[in-house]
């Protein structure tokens, strides 16, 4: 019986909430997303984090020579990958965690939940602006790299879409879960650290692909943000695990592991969100 879980397992003193509803109305999500977009635009800090942080990171690393994959084509691909990675990590994961905590603490989540919205609609409404920013940065990054360096080959564009959209969905679920472990907006700065600290060194971001090997690399393959890099490289340049360039057909086979890892973390994130996400402040 899934209908009973959330209210009846909330600790004594916690206020009850309606049972989970399964509805999903694009109209309601759009309305919530519009309000959330307004709030993003009016919050200078969040807006700066969202719009400027990822590109600045890329520019900074490029300027100090942190991204050099040999050829200019490979360097361009690595730059786009870094941009997508940072955008998903900071705009989607970090900013969304903060957003969910803020909406919960100001009792807005509770208000929506008492009305006609379902939980998934509320989470999605909050996530749409972050998705839009991440998507826009991806597109702009590809355009910029194409103009300055060399256009990516796009051996398998589908995998680029899977990396960006799948990564965003996974990180939304993880953000919802992380928000439940954060009592305040400030503490969300700490609770988001473990994922970022673990994932970034394993993210395969810097240096030529295939340079790392052994146990470190094997562990890295299963960290949550790694499939984003793997799929981006496969999709945009056909670069496989060992640095070799693959054909379209080969990229599908090579994508199996990263897609499975991405799906696994999305599932884990969704389960964790169900378990930990809170819809109203602790009292």
């Amino acid at each position, binding site marked *: 019986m899934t*209908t*009973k879980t959330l*209210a*009846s397992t909330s600790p*004594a*003193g916690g*206020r*009850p*909430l*309606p*049972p989970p*509803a399964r*509805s999903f109305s694009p*109209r*309601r999500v*759009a*309305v*919530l997303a*519009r*309000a959330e977009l*307004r*709030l993003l635009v*009016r*919050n200078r800090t969040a807006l700066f984090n969202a719009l400027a942080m990822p590109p600045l990171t890329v520019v900074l690393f490029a300027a100090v020579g942190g991204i050099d994959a040999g050829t200019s084509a490979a360097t361009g691909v690595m730059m786009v990958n870094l941009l997508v990675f940072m955008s998903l990590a900071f705009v989607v994961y970090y900013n969304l965690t903060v957003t969910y905590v803020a*909406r919960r603490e*100001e*009792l*807005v989540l*509770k*208000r*929506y939940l*008492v*009305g*006609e*919205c379902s939980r998934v609609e509320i989470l999605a409404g909050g996530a749409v602006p972050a998705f839009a920013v991440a998507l826009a940065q991806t597109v702009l990054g590809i355009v910029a790299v194409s103009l300055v360096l060399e256009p990516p080959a796009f051996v398998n564009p589908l995998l680029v879409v899977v990396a960006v959209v799948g990564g965003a969905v996974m990180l939304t679920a993880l953000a919802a879960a992380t928000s439940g472990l954060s009592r305040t907006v400030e503490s969300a700065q700490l609770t988001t650290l473990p994922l970022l600290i673990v994932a970034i060194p394993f993210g395969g971001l810097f240096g030529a692909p295939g340079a790392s090997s052994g146990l470190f690399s094997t562990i890295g393959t299963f960290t949550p943000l790694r499939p984003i890099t793997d799929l981006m490289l496969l999709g945009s340049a056909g670069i496989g695990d060992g640095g070799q360039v693959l054909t379209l057909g080969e990229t599908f086979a090579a994508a199996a592991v990263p897609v499975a890892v991405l799906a696994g973390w999305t599932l884990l994130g969704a389960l964790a969100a169900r378990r930990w996400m809170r819809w109203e402040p602790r*009292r």
Partner: protein
Amino acid sequence: MTSQPIVSVRGARRRYGSFEAVRGVDLDVHRGELVALLGTNGAGKTSLVELVEGLAPADGGEVRVLGHDPYRERRRIVGSLGIMLQSAGFSGDLTVAETARTWAGTLTRPRAVDEVLRAVDMAHRADVRVASLSGGEKRRLDLALATMGDPEVLFLDEPTTGLDPESRRATWRLVQGMLAAGTTVLLTTHYLEEAEQLADRIAILQGGRIVRSGTVADIVAAEPARLECVVRGRDGGALAPAVADLPVLAGVVGAPDIDHTGRLRLRTTALQDDLYTLLQWADARQLRLDDLDARSASLEQAFLAMDGAGTRAVDDTSEVAA
């Protein structure tokens, strides 16, 4: 066809751990009626209302709203409900109009936003950020959102707490207008005057049980009237007559009280007869009854009498704590 109650509660129970906040409540609210739930903090008002709103499952008994279980079948009725919680928030950076339009966008049958804001006297604040509103204005915006979906059933949990008297009256007029249009309302309040003004029927909760229910007149009729005066002699000096000096008063409840300043206080179930007797008695002895105050019981009196001294005010948040 309208004989079936809109809200029907039978033997409802609600527990928090070992503490039982709602202990077998029966309650009906019929179409177009306003029922007010009264009780001190901790009496179980909010715990009961949350069962009816479908925000929590009952631990026993049966709750029906519009013929459905409001918790398990919430999807089927939520579009017909208007809910004003004691505490629900706003995003401070949105304006009043943006907040209202967002909410309207989530509803099945929204009313026009401008019209609803006018009804709660917030139209002139439409472009103000919610963060800049006063507490009373936020409460009115809350009410606007609760009524935005043109609900068949409206739940108001302390709707006028924090409002100034003028806003409170404006809220009453709005609720009365919705009642006139056929909306069914269940309201909790701390303000007895509010219940007297609005309620067709009242249910008084105490310790998780309904200890009295009925119309204001029913409840008040069971309560003795009060009679109070200062007995003075011909020269204007206060007298303190002994109780034995007083005439026989047919309806008096308990012993009359006379303090050293000559102030007489008594409670009676036969106000007219006893007042007449007392006036005759004073006239015959050429006494003056200063500060004469004879009044039928108020709801407040009935409420306080029921609650002992009415001093069990507990902080609201401890309402659910074991």
